[in-house]
């Protein structure tokens, strides 16, 4: 690829990404009455998206091979227990990450 072609390729990636980000705001500008269904989705969607993001992060975990997702399972359990116990966001994240690093570096 020439440098110009590289710049065009990167430009296309920028354009596509910017489009996905701005589209909802272009279609439904603030100040204008939003359709009922979009108002409703804006309310119920975030909860589902938070779940989706957890699955998205773990999408490459192989259940049938490798470490069978055991380090991920243990680390997610540690995060959950820590969080339900202390409810300190940073502590839960730190605890889970340290356990996960220990597991993947030294055990699995």
């Amino acid at each position, binding site marked *: 690829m020439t440098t110009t072609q590289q710049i065009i390729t990167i430009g296309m990636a920028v354009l596509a990404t910017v489009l996905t980000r701005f589209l909802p705001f272009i279609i439904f500008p603030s100040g204008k009455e939003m359709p009922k*269904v979009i108002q409703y989705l804006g309310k119920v969607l975030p909860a589902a998206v938070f779940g989706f993001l957890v699955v998205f*992060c773990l999408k490459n975990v192989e259940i049938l091979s490798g470490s069978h997702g055991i380090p991920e399972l243990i680390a997610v359990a540690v*995060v959950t227990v820590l969080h339900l116990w202390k409810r300190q966001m940073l502590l839960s994240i730190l605890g889970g990450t340290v356990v996960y690093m220990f597991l993947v570096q030294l055990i699995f």
Partner: protein
Amino acid sequence: MNKNGIIKRSLLAAFPYTLPILAGFLFLGITYGLYMNVSGFGFVYPMVTSMLVFAGSAEFLLVNMLLGAFDPIQTFLMILMINARHLFYGISLLEKYSGTGLKKFYLIFGMCDESFSVNCSVDIPENTDKGWFMFFVTILNQSYWVLGATLGGIFGSFINFNTEGLDFAMTAMFVVIFLEQLLKEKNHLSSVLGIVLPVVSLLIFGPDKFIIPAMIMIFAALILLKKPLLKGGAAI
């Protein structure tokens, strides 16, 4: 209260929420910069793409595209598909981002999985400004990513500390945000759908193609199940 005081307080209030992202983004950013580096691109490439594209998986894929044959249309469509989840975030943030003035452009431009989750889930602390708080969350997150990508591009090959597994910080953050949502809401249906439907889609379509079907399933389920979803108060 003076304006600078509020801006400063917003920054100080935003920073702790970005700490897990600092860990995750520096690590992933360095990995990305290193990947660019070993693929034969100078540090300017990861630096510029992390500033302008700022979407992790799309950037990694972009490296492959830059190495392959020139095909701008395919690049456009592929990146559009990978980043389609931003449409989700936009719809969820329409109200939250309104009334933030010129900052809104950057809030939208810099909206990533992590900034979306923080801005969407956090109750904006008192004595801070909503717009500035969300602005700092967004710009701090992006600076970590740009910093990581640039450092990775320059020094990537010199790192010898075993960082394997550090990126789990981000998974852990999403788990915590999901837990907080479960603890906060009265009606768990949307949260449950948000786990079950993507898992079903993942099992059917595999990790590379599950995003769009999962989104369609979620949209369809939320619209079909409107009545039970609104029972016992809204999901939020």
